[in-house]
């Protein structure tokens, strides 16, 4: 069924070219500054030197958008960096039953540590518990399990913090402007993370009594929905001073709508940290002035944590003998001033 009727040589050409373009694209996502300082104290910490061999099982959802794709790439390239790490990676799936099966397979293979980004945190709690009971420690990546017993360490982004930092950035820009109006283009409304981002944003704006949020519409993280919802918002609000868009993928569409409406009378802050958004911030020729990170590098850090756990070591730079039980990453604000530093982490 997937066979495409290759009617012309050109179509064939495009196909091959598309495939090689895809291969090229995947090759350039992760690029972290190397690496943590050696801790001075006695606690044995994981460093770049080869140690005990560790097999890490990695199970994530289907990489159907840029951020998840970057998660996979970050995990793979980080694992490749260590000669003592073997990565068992499963085919990503959004089907809960299928992901449970994949994780059970990894448990049966007796991997040393599991890194799990569940398609749905609550629904996969049981299999997390199974792994822990089988003696395989679990690093829970981003979408949190319902029970803390289902993981040894949770590492993930800060959705509330994203909203908070976006709100503060906009607040500082507009604090001297009387009766300033802001507009919010939210992500998929039936996800908890969207509610958290909105709550953080609202809480930050409370510090600035001169600023009022006049409109909020929810898109669904796709370019198409971003364009459609933003076009409506622009029609509804003939004048406003700032826009916060939850997600850079839908931001591509939002920027397109802004462009089509010929509007440039406000500043825009994005979310997540896509490369296209960072490029626009760097070029500084449009409304997009900043983006708030939800860093996919967390997958690389999860591999680091898994390796440290497998080797029974702590984290470099910290005094403890063990890795922490939970790590919430900071949602940094990327602006023109610091964009060069973050550009290599931008995802496509």
């Amino acid at each position, binding site marked *: 069924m997937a066979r495409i009727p290759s009617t012309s040589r050109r179509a064939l050409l495009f196909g091959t070219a598309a495939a090689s*373009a895809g291969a090229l694209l995947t090759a350039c996502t992760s690029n972290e500054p190397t690496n943590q300082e050696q801790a001075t104290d006695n606690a044995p910490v994981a460093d770049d030197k080869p140690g005990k061999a560790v097999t890490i099982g990695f199970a994530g959802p289907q990489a*159907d958008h*840029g951020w998840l794709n970057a998660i996979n790439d970050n995990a793979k390239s980080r694992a490749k960096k260590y000669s003592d790490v073997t990565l068992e990676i499963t085919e990503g799936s959004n089907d809960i039953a299928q992901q449970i099966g994949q994780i059970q397979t990894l448990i049966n293979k007796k991997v040393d540590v599991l890194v799990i980004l569940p398609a749905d945190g609550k629904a996969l709690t049981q299999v997390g518990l199974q792994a822990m009971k089988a003696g395989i420690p679990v690093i829970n990546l981003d979408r949190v399990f319902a029970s803390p017993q289902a993981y040894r360490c949770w590492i993930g982004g800060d959705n509330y913090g994203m909203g908070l930092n976006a709100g503060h950035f906009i607040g500082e820009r507009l604090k001297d402007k009387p009766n300033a109006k802001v507009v919010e283009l939210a992500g998929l409304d039936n996800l908890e993370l969207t509610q958290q981002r909105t709550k953080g944003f609202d809480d930050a704006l409370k510090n600035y009594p001169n600023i009022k949020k006049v409109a909020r519409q*929810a898109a669904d993280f796709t370019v*198409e929905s971003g364009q459609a919802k933003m076009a409506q918002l622009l*029609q*509804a609000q003939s004048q406003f001073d700032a826009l916060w868009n939850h997600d850079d993928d839908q931001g591509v569409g939002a920027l*397109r709508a802004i462009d089509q409406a010929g509007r440039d009378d406000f500043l825009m802050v994005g979310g997540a940290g896509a490369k296209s958004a960072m490029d626009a911030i760097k070029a500084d020729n449009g409304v997009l002035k900043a983006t708030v990170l939800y860093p996919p590098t967390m997958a690389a850090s999860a591999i680091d944590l898994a390796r440290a756990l497998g080797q029974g070591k702590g984290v470099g730079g910290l005094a403890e003998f063990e890795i922490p039980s939970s790590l919430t990453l900071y949602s940094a604000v990327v602006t023109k001033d610091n964009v060069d530093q973050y550009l290599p982490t931008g995802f496509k």
Partner: protein
Amino acid sequence: MTQPATAAQKETPTSAAKSARGQEISRRLGLRWDVRSLSLLGVLVVLVAVGGITAPDEFLATSNLQLVLTQASVIGVVTVGMTFVITGGGIDLSVGAIVALASVWATTVATQEFGFAGILFTAVIVGVGCGLVNGLLIAYGRLVPFIATLAMLASARGLALQITDGSTQIVAVDSVLDLGARDAYVLGVPPLVLIFAAVTVIGWLLLNRTTFGRRTVAVGGNAEAARLAGIDVRRQRLYLYLLSGLCCGIAAFMLIVLAGSGQNTNGNLYELDAIAAAIIGGTLLSGGRGTILGSVLGVLVFTTITNIFALNNLETAVQQIAKGAIIVAAVLVQRRSMPGDA
């Protein structure tokens, strides 16, 4: 179900005779404004009134009319193709996936090197190609349309994901992007709306004024009777899916212009939107009767609802509840106004 006034069945059952006569008159007048389309037009008028009252400044502006029509144009073109397929007794669940595949295939770095023509050509060819596969499987492979197009849905989405690797492919060809800009408007009409209008007019002519259209209705109404009447039913079915694929290809190009990018999530749930618009427009889900004007009105009703909600800054949850209620209300109103054809 009765299908009055189809080419294949000249005899009309008495229970539907009245509405059949009405249809016959409107047919002679050259219009297929049956009662369903008229009542849908009524719904649209009510919506415009609601919009005008709740958000007078924003809703009644010219820029808003341009916005609503632009937002309706992509799904509108898909719905025209879908109307043909449903009228011919089939269903095409793969339209959203085909739009996604065509839009990502047409925006790969390699395709973009060929510029405007390359993007347009690729989008259309991929659409037609998928339609061809659907059509061959259904007409000559004897697969049930539901299954064949469901399989196409899955594999086209998969291929789209494979091509993009999940990334958003930004279009850097200015001539394509400019088509969506305000400068490109022709006498205040956006080019995308012109394409939509052209597809609608051609679709209307094709369905109502040609042998092809009459064959489509005949095949959808009673395939066996159509075969006995000398129609090549299989070839007709193949053509219908080709047509739907072509519409998807055109829609994919329009979406590329609109969103300035190609993404494997494009065209999400278009199949449901297109089927819903066609059905509330008055096209019979079991085939044998279809109306292009009704489908277009259906699309406009949906787009206007979305627009009014956004202008009034209502929450997503409220939007979804109200949308469902309005669909049911629209269909109920249609039923009431057509007692002989419930």
